[in-house]
């Protein structure tokens, strides 16, 4: 009797745990902790039933276990949902829950952002505790204001070390609604901060015709299949950029001087980036470099190091380099160890990538060095020993270097110059050099600076290598790469069994 009772209870528990698993019921709590998921409970009870019962029930338990096994195996596959999240009421709890679903689903935020400080660096900043950190990102902005700007106009402020690759999430292909963006902001606020679901006026009118027209791709008249051919065989993009389902033709050789480098996978590029971004990446490869894929050349201790910039922070960079044998290794280089290089013109210092500058003042002769903060047409601002110091661009000593026809290299402080002569102070003495005697130069150095120049490994002249129709086809193909789960396997049809 007792054995029969155990059997029946076991049978009921198996059925209940199966239903709970399929219905995705919350885990059954044990000692206030969700210790065991329903899948484990079901497995235990199904096993118990197979052991305890004979004949029909044993058979049914086995059959249920097989059905469960396939459902379970498929449920552990990583994927994202494109489903619309239903927001039932305007409460912080509902918003945070909906925002999390959108963050991991329709918004595709988790494709590039992580929520784990120990996770390897991703394409975009880790968002752990962003609810509080957001308030410190931009002076004068609250956490919510910063989050609103970052979602609607992500290009306006870039976290140091990250490129401008995030698409405005209200634009296609992600196309979040205003309400959905509100929930994502609520979810981000909940990461260490206080959730405020007060309505706000979006900085962009999503529904305006201008906003929609701006997104219309100008070059989408191409043919996808021909574009694929350009991608694989013409421009040979496939040599570096992987697309799941497409493989590089065996024996394909690259043009002389072009080598295979790690480049972003493009399987779902059109799903996570706007068409404008794709177009810009093809026409202007250097416009925005995906973090972890840029080429960099730096000089330290007189040695030149060339490689791929893997990570970067305020103190050091990690560069992946190849040795002569082709083996790759990562090298950490302190920014302070980089060799300063002469700066000819004190213009566009930000664009040129300078982060540290040394100048000699013309009036006092004092040498000042510090972290570069900003520049105007007239001055530059340096951070020297924790204090900002503004230096007038006209008040810096200029070093001039020239070579005469006797191959003498003459270096000195520039006093004046005109069409006929250049006056320098060399070793404390003024020296006038007739421009007729100058073979090369003069070149000027108004300051010394350290900089990081990250470029795309793609050939700069890439757009010129393709015909207009090939370019159009290529863009059309890239725009078709909209996979939701960048995953696996195979480039054409595989065996299916329906």
């Amino acid at each position: 009797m007792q054995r029969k009772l155990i059997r029946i209870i076991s049978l009921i528990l198996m059925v209940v745990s199966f239903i709970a698993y399929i219905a995705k019921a919350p885990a059954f709590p044990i000692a206030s902790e969700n210790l065991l998921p329903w899948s484990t409970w079901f497995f235990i009870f199904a096993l118990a039933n197979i052991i305890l019962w004979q004949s029909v029930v044993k058979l049914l338990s086995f059959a249920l276990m097989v059905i469960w096994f396939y459902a379970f195996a498929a449920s552990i596959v990583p994927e994202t949902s494109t489903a619309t999240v239903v927001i039932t009421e305007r409460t912080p709890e509902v918003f945070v829950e909906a925002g999390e679903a959108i963050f991991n689903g329709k918004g595709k935020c988790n494709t590039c952002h992580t929520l784990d400080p120990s996770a390897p660096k991703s394409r975009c900043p880790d968002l752990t505790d962003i609810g509080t950190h957001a308030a410190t990102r931009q002076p004068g902005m609250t956490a919510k204001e910063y989050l609103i700007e970052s979602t609607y106009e992500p290009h306006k402020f870039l976290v140091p070390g990250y490129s401008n690759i995030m698409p405005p999430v209200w634009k296609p292909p992600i196309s979040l609604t205003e309400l959905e963006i509100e929930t994502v902001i609520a979810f981000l606020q909940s990461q260490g901060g206080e959730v405020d679901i007060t309505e706000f006026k979006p900085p962009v009118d999503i529904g305006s015709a201008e906003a929609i027209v701006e997104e219309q791709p100008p070059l989408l008249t191409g043919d996808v299949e021909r574009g694929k051919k350009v991608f694989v065989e013409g421009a040979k993009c496939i040599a570096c950029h992987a697309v799941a389902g497409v493989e590089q033709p065996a024996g394909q050789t690259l043009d002389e001087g072009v080598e295979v480098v790690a480049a972003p996978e493009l399987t779902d590029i059109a799903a996570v980036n706007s068409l404008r971004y794709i177009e810009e990446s093809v026409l202007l490869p250097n416009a925005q470099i995906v973090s972890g894929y840029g080429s960099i050349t730096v000089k330290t201790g007189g040695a030149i190091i060339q490689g791929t910039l893997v990570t970067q922070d305020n103190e050091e960079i990690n560069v992946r380099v190849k040795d002569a044998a082709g083996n790759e290794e990562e090298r950490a280089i302190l920014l302070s160890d980089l060799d300063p290089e002469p700066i000819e013109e004190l213009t566009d210092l930000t664009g040129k990538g300078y982060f540290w500058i040394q100048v000699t003042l013309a009036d006092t002769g004092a040498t000042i060095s510090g972290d570069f903060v900003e520049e105007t047409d007239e001055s530059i601002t340096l951070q020297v020993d924790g204090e900002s110091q503004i230096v007038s661009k006209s008040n810096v000593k200029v070093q001039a270097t020239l070579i005469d026809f006797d191959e003498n290299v003459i270096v000195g402080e520039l006093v004046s110059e005109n069409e006929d002569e250049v006056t320098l102070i060399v070793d404390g003495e003024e020296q006038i050099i007739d421009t007729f005697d100058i073979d090369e130069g003069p070149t000027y150095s108004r300051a010394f600076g350290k900089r990081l120049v990250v470029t795309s490994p793609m050939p700069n002249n890439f757009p010129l290598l393709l015909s207009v129709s090939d370019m159009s086809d290529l863009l059309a193909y890239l725009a078709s790469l909209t996979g939701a789960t960048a995953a696996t396997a195979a480039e054409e049809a595989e065996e299916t069994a329906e």
Partner: protein
Amino acid sequence: MYLTKHLNMSQSKNRLYFLLALLAMYLLLTVATVFAQDATDTEYRPFPGIGSRNAAWIAAQLHLLFGSFILGVPMFAVVIEFVGMKTKDKRYDKMAQEFIKLCMGAFSTTALMGGVLVFILIWCYPKVMNKLSGIFGPSMIFYVILFFGETFTLYLYSYGWDRMQGRVSKMWHLFLGVLLNVFGTAIMFVSNAWLTYQTSPAIMGPKPAHEAIPLHDESGAFIGTLWQAINNYTWMPVNIHRLIGNIAFGGAIVGAYAAFRFLAAKTQEDRAHYDWMGYTGNFIALCGLIPLPFAGYWLGREIYMFNQTMGINMMGSLFSWLFIIQAVMIGVLFIGANYYLWSGMTRIAGGEVYARFRPYMIAIIVLSVAIWMTPRTLIVTPTELAAMGGPNHPLVGLFGLMTAKNTVVNLIILTTFLSFLFYRRSGKTPTVTWRKAGNIIIAVTFGLAVAAIVTIGIVGFKVNTDFRVNVLTPIQVLVALAVMIVVTVIDLIMYRKAMRSSEINWGQMTDRSQYVLILLAITFTSLMGLMGYARSGLREAWHIFGVMPDTSPDAHTPLLADAVNMIAVIIVIFFALVGFIFWLGLWGDKKKEGEPPVEAEASAGDD
């Protein structure tokens, strides 16, 4: 007299089936008239409780599973009946009849599910149905005619079984069986046109480009003919794929039924009968399973040719992980089928001599399945990317390529064929003088074929995709098929007058082997559910791909994790209904055992 006896409906279950079928036909006819009318302007109506998509999904998948059952099992039955007639072995005839009886119940359920599905579609998706009926209206009338044809042929085939015995009558009965299958297959082809049109509303352009020619203008208006809509890009590949799949599915369900009866059997005689039935079912399932991947390959290729993006979504993006799960299931099918064959050798004295090959064959199959399951690429972190030196793993990444997968599929098929060969030979000794030479020829043929398949696979890494897909892969398939044909012919001749050292001890199978048969049936069913989700999901947010967008709240592809749960629910319902139909059959038989025979009863009445 005949009609009196058989339309008397003395058997309660037959009366129930008949009423159910009539009700289903009535529903379908009612629905057919609704098709002709314009629907309202309403685009969607919600289905209470579970939502429109889930309701349509459950009804469609159940209809499809039962449909497969009633298409697959009659094919199985006709073949078995023919074998019984040729061998004069009554067991075959009895088994075929047993299954046609089960078909009767399943037939009514299929029709009911079809009716339910149509009602759900018309109620929940009036605009879509309006569009489809506007294009396919005449074919829907044809469908109803075919349905009548199938219904009455099935009744004649089933009720006439006992009456139509003897050489001439049996030939006519077999003809009815073939006609039943023709009607069934035609019904499937017609309905396939509707659903494949939703996926690929275009026709194939002229050779060699085979470019897709759309059947709609820019406003979405249909500009083709009915035949063009039917003969759309993926229609014939789906037809063939489903036809073969139904054979395999029918065999697997028969195997599962036999396993259930074997495990519940009280006598050795019953165990022997159901053991034999299980073996036959598994054999038919295997015959369908082996060519199924090739048919699937063709279907996938057509999808690529219709729309490159859809193809990439299928294999390399949205559904790519689904195909890894599919590989797991097909791996289970092949491993299970081989295990069953090896278990079967234990009931034949002399079969143990082949046991020494088993570890190697297991190793080949398991390794091959592992390679088949290897994804090409995965989401990687920059650190992992750096560690691998690129987006693909330097060694394992190669296994993700199609050339590796095609190679292992052929190796699995050849290994399974070898298992069957060993099974066939168990307990027999060839008497021909050239038996040694014959074995050497077979061994060398196998060896050369494996070497050729592997070599082609390796060469496949180094050639361009077009050459591999259009030349190398077909050669690989042909090599595998050629080996199976050549070896079968040699083996048949060698063992034609073989000395049988022992008989097959039917019924001497382990319970484990019967569980494997049930595992195979559930796996087949799960696979059908999974691939149904893929086929339908490929349209993404379109009712008719590229023509009619889905603007309902369900306009997204459900996650694989959610889809498999839904499939699990459907499979549970399906097997519960199948179990009920099987039980109904048993219940009727038990009742009949206690009653006087029908003939005696009818004769008494006549007197």
